């Protein structure tokens, strides 16, 4: 369960997030949809404890993201905007590092890493150094590292950015699986089709504010548009930055 309550954040004079509230329930995929620069990444950074909101608060499973930082991070798996790996370590070592920082170790950790690499179709790359991996392979390692501790709450910032068709399919498969296991999944995207294909709940963000929210059907009803794309454009007020 991830909750944002009237989050506000300014950087200097620029208002990045201006009153964002939503609740992402367990066993549901919640999509944060909005054009580039709408405030999605800043919102996710507040939810993942890295940025303190100017006003409002965020919580994960009822734990405050600022006050109970380490407990929140223990229950959260985050794929942030920056997903750099350590090029001199192997894929396995990259994932193992994060697993160990979550207090996992030994046989159980290695089994979980193997399971994730198989799931992500990365088996044969596991023990190669990450240096020279393709964009898609790197994202997969980053995903494995996000999920290695089996978090009940998962946040993914533009997870399919830069992925080819096959990798995108794998990624969607992983996201659905997480939902089916009862996880609370929040992911952000500026790609409308993706949100439409995956989400149980959509939160439309524009200019730092939530402009609409609901299940895809509710959104159609709300805006009076039959086509989902038209519904989004109507909600945001412009099609700039959407694909």
């Amino acid at each position, binding site marked *: 369960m991830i909750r944002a309550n009237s989050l506000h954040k300014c950087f200097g004079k620029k208002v990045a997030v201006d009153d964002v509230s939503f609740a992402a329930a367990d066993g549901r995929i919640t999509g944060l949809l909005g054009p580039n620069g709408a405030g999605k990444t800043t919102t996710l950074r507040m939810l*993942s*404890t*890295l*940025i*303190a909101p100017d006003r409002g608060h965020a919580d994960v499973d009822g734990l405050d993201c600022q006050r109970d*930082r*380490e*407990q*929140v*991070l*223990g229950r*959260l798996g*985050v*794929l*942030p*905007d*920056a*997903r*750099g*790996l*350590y*090029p*001199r*370590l192997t894929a396995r*070592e990259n994932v193992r*590092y*994060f697993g*160990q*920082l*979550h*207090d996992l170790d030994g046989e159980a950790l290695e089994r979980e890493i193997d399971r994730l690499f198989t799931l992500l179709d990365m088996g044969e790359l596991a023990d190669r150094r990450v240096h020279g991996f393709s964009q898609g392979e790197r994202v997969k390692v*980053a995903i494995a*590292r*996000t999920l290695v501790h089996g978090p009940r709450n998962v946040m993914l910032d533009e997870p399919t950015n830069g992925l080819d068709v096959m990798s995108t399919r794998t990624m969607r498969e992983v996201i659905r699986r997480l939902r089916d296991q009862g996880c609370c999944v929040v992911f952000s995207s500026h790609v409308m089709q993706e949100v439409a294909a995956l989400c149980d709940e959509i939160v439309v963000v524009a200019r730092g504010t939530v402009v609409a929210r609901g299940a895809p059907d509710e959104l159609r009803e709300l805006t009076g548009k039959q086509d989902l794309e038209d519904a989004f454009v109507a909600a945001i007020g412009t099609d700039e930055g959407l694909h």
Partner: protein
Amino acid sequence: MSWRHIRVVFLKELTDALRDRRSLFSALILPLVGPLLVVVMFRFLAEQNATTGPVPLPVVGAEYAPGLIEFLRSNDVDIQPAPEDPEQAVRSGLAPAVLIIEPDYENRFREARPAKLELLVDNSRNDGRAKVRRAKRALDAFGAQTGAMRLLARGLDPQISRPVAVTEVDLATPQQLAANVLNVIPMFVMMAAFIGGMYVATDSTAGERERGSLEPLLGNPVSRTSMVLGKWLATAALSGASLLLTLVTAGMALGLAPLDDLGIEVSFGVSEALRVALVMLPVALLAAGVQLLVATFARSFREAQTYLSVLTLAPMMPGMWLTVAPMDAAPWTFAVPILGQQVVLMDVIRGNPVGLLGYLLPAVLALAFALVCVRVTAWLLGREKIIFGG
């Protein structure tokens, strides 16, 4: 703070560093190059200060002063024919000095008036200084001898022309003389402490952010202090290893240096090396702490490297000062990190006794200072501007 997390971060950073050519290079450069410089430097010094062998001295107008020439020859001066351009010969370093005897030397000498001799030297050159000094001494000796004979011929005791007799008594023990020369070793060891971990410090902070791995790393349920402590220990491990290695190779180099030719006696054995290590290891911890802090603060990898290069010069300054003007251990010097270590180190190398406080106080202060740096770095990692840059 968790020991387990500190260990995980430490091991990861160490693995990462040991697989990197650049960080290995920065850890190994001084252990390899420093001692080489020691040997070359000592050989050079030995050559310059050679106190044996004839002094070559080209003479212009040797035919005017056969007596003087004879005297010089018997005083270990190798009289050489006059070069075509005496001034050029001295300036270019071809000859350390050229002696010019004026044609009226013979007349003036016979009339017991000062006979003029010109000794061309170039005082801006270091290489011939010892030889020039010895040539001068031979000329002075000739003057003194002739003067004494003249007085005797006139029935006077030559002693009356020597109202005072100055004798220089050098109180420095050979050990202390050697220490002045040996100061280069603490300097190299100090540099190793700062250069050894420089790359890891940059790579694990500014590099971590530039690579885009800082944000994911901070998404782990680990206190920032544990994280920085792990990185700090990894940096200090490389600094310390580099420092110890420099000590070993420098000690071996001393064995190869022509110290006997310099009339220097050095007792730099295992026990001295161990004491130097004891004094210097806290410096590795201090250097690592300061470097992490500075590199975290820098906006980019490049900027961090620039700052850390400049930082490397800082600990060398007291070292250079001590080489020029060795100072005794005033109590306050112990309290200044780096300077304290260097003063204690000088005592160790000079063979002076060092009290427990001398070892302990600088070490404790260095550690305290390093931990402050770690704490501030951890605080910086909680700041949005530092995490995301910008």
